[in-house]
């Protein structure tokens, strides 16, 4: 009888910890909703001895040249999995999903192609996305956003 109580206590504690953690913070799917402004593009080289440093504009032009997001300036995450990418010239609507434990942002385009970004940081006012890229040297590109609405 005593051992049953001990086991029940342990399992109930486990469930309680889970419920407390989950309910203490909103889901990344909720936090991401709204309009975000691209602040800067950075590039972290794998080999630090490479002597070229890239400006935010150069990084955007080179690392993002094959990506649809690269001409966007504002990203608006809408409920229902739609993302509006607003640029100087035009707007584009794509689909978004969050995967894993909330650490992967998946963008899906009309032709069914997908792009995946690591959600390195996501809170009420700042979002950081990382993705691997081959510019002139191999490295990781970093996009920083600030929330507008």
């Amino acid at each position, binding site marked *: 009888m005593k051992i049953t109580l001990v086991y029940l206590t342990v*399992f109930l504690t*486990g469930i309680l*910890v*889970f*419920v*407390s*953690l*989950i309910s*203490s*913070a*909103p*889901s*990344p*799917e909720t936090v991401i909703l709204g309009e975000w402004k691209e602040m800067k593009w950075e590039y972290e080289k794998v080999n630090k001895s490479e002597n070229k440093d890239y400006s935010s504009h150069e990084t955007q032009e080179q690392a993002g040249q094959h990506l649809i997001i690269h001409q966007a300036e504002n990203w608006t995450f809408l409920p229902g*999995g739609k993302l509006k990418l607003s640029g100087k010239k035009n707007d584009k609507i794509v689909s978004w*999903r*969050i*995967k*894993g*434990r*909330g*650490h*992967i942002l*998946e963008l899906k385009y009309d032709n069914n192609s997908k792009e*995946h970004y690591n959600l390195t940081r996501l809170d009420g006012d700042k979002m950081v996305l990382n993705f691997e890229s081959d510019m002139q040297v191999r490295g990781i590109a970093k996009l920083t956003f600030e929330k507008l609405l």
Partner: protein
Amino acid sequence: MLRKFSNSRTLDDNLKLGTLTAFSAGMVNIASLMIFFSFSSNVTGHYAILAEEILKGNWYQAGVVFSWIFLFFFGSFVSNMMVIYLNGRNAYFAHALPIILEIMCLVSVGIYGQFFYRETLTETEALLCLMLFAMGLQNGLTASISNFAVKTTHLTGITTDLGILFSMFTMKKFRENEMLVGKAKLLLSIVLAYVLGAVFSGLIYFEIKFKVFYVVSFFLVLVIAYDFSKIRLLRYLAVNRTKEPVSRDPKSETRKVRQEEGISVV
């Protein structure tokens, strides 16, 4: 493969069980990585991620990772409960039950993914929960019935053991030790099966998507069916023997078959 318990198991029993279940685990792990971007058969990395999410103050993510670890633990717990509480009545049933439960979990993931999955984060996390529970069940079962010789869902311990064994094999006395050589064969087979399963899963995933979980379940059905067919064969042989007009004791024949089937004999 499943009937025998602990020290009564041979190297051959462990090899069959180890390779088939490791193949399945490799398949499940790579499928979950490709679909959900998270591992499901190993939890070492999840402990590190849990610590990282706590440090960052990402409590929601910490909760999710905690639930995955907890469910892997719970799977192993349930599996061994079945083994130790039901082993006395029918060892085959006790050892097959966790695999049946695992198949149910994986088939559920397959059916849900194929027909209902809308790719929301909640669904992703719940399906991963189910897969981690299934892997906990499998690892708990194989470790339990093989006296901790077979663990098939993660390779950290196995790689460590292989490193130790291969360093021992630099000495002749260890190279000639059949038990150590057998252990090395078993561990290498598990590693190979796991990697093959992962590669196979990765290849077929692009074609069949969520149906990959039905393929995994098929391999697990093989594990159950193999022993079931052996039991049927042994029963058939026992019945035929008792019909023979040789002065044999039918009770002792039945007793022998029941022992081979893994059913407790009083």
